[in-house]
């Protein structure tokens, strides 16, 4: 695609209708996400965040539209993109009878990680997994599982990382720890990160740009600071409520 670096994600007219005749879960979504940025996908339950992420990952076939991930068309060339992407969600488990190290080895092989054992030990050290690296994943606490899931998501040093609620059900300390790890990873590698979250503080801290989804459509977009200014609010949670409840800035004031 020429000499210029392709965007991390190029999404054009992405639409998903699960049942013919029903309202689309995602309706004509278009955006271009550059490399090196952290973007947030915000929206209430049923806004289309999970459906969007599933289509970006190639897990779900769009009804129309297209996704180019790292320059690869997800409809025709998704495996080339998937090797350089990764994903984490608290709603998808890792095999719970395998130890942490065994789980990381499985995904190290699946992603073709070079010098895999060294990479695993680096992740064990970086995410402080040493105390439970040889325990079955099913015996870990929620916070430990999240750290392991994040280590799995970074095993192949992805250029594009998709995260679905990365700090859901974590205590504030662990949540802060995960956010710091994500910031560090992005700063060190220049990876692009797209995260869907209900934690507005997290989005304000991590994201350079936010897509506000409602009814499967982008109803607003901008940096957290720009959105706060636009809606005349002090924090992103109030902006979220305004958008979710369909209030414009004039109404708020």
């Amino acid at each position, binding site marked *: 695609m020429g000499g210029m670096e392709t965007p991390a994600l190029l999404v054009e007219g992405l639409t998903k209708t*699960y049942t013919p005749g029903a309202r689309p879960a995602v309706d004509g979504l278009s955006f271009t996400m550059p490399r090196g940025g952290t973007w947030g996908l915000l929206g209430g339950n049923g806004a289309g965040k*999970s*459906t969007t992420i*599933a289509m970006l*990952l*190639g*897990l*779900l*076939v769009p009804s129309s539209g297209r996704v180019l991930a790292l320059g690869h068309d997800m409809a025709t060339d998704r*495996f080339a993109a*998937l*090797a350089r*992407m*990764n*994903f984490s*969600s608290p*709603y*998808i*488990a*890792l*095999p*719970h*009878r*395998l*130890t942490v190290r*065994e789980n990381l*080895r*499985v*995904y*190290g*092989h*699946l*992603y*073709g990680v070079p010098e895999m054992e060294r990479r695993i030990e680096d992740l064990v050290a970086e995410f402080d997994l040493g105390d439970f690296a040889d325990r*079955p994943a099913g015996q870990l606490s929620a916070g430990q599982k999240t750290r392991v899931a994040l280590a*799995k998501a970074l095993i192949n040093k992805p250029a594009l990382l998709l995260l679905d609620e990365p700090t859901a059900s974590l205590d504030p300390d662990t949540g802060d720890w995960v956010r710091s790890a994500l910031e560090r990873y992005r700063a060190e590698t220049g990876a692009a990160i797209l995260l869907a979250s209900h934690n507005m503080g997290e989005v304000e801290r991590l994201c350079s740009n936010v897509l506000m989804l409602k009814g499967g459509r982008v109803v607003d977009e901008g940096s957290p600071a720009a959105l706060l200014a636009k809606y005349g609010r002090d924090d992103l949670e109030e902006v979220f409520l305004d958008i979710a409840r369909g209030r414009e800035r004039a109404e708020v004031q």
Partner: protein
Amino acid sequence: MGASSLRRIWGLVYRHLALYRRSWPRVLELMYWPVLQMVVWGFITAYLAGVQQNTATIAAGVLLGGVLLWEITLRSQMGFAISFLEEVWSRNLGHIFVSPLRPWEMVAGLAAMSVLRTVAAVLPAIVLAFVLYGFGVWRIGPVLVVFVFALMAMGWAVALAVTALILRHGAGAEALAWGVTFGIAPFAAVFYPVAVLPPWLQPVALSIPAAHVFEGMRAALIDGRIAWDHLAWAVALDGVWLALAAWIFLAQFHQARVRGALLNIGE
């Protein structure tokens, strides 16, 4: 097949081997049913040999040979389908399918696990048949290798179709993974010739690869000859069954991607 494909396939196999390394009840369960079948059929064989006038057929070992070879089909099918179900039970499919693992590589990994599980399951029964009843399955001759391959291929074809149904209906279809091959047994001529079946049922039996393998097994054990025609039919039918099952699997895999079932496949 490139080195990167082989590594991804090994990744999937490693995942299942790690599971078995940690769980001796799973390993024991693998061997339990084939050994039990062998013990029961061994005593039945001994009993029939005692009450029948003409014991030549029984002495040739067709019943015990049938038990052992049918277990290969059964364990091959279960080894494949249950390895897939392990991913469903652990809710790990989402991670698997967003990795660069191609669908055919997943199938190859499950087939490799099926081979390992079948060896672990059937080998003790083979040894037991020799030690307790003096029946060595190698009596069939070198053609045994082709029989084993043909029966395993049939097991994979059935398992691919079962896996497609699990993709379509979720873990609700898992009972098929355990039971579907048992339902084929009456028509597969495992313990009796196809000629015993009613004429209208014989074409059904002859469309099953295993029926030709067992006709071939009886020819080898009783007449000491290789039934090349049955051998050819078994291999050709395996090709047809595998092609059909692969088509069903790929169609259901695509449909699962259309419906969004890969993320939350379960009950």
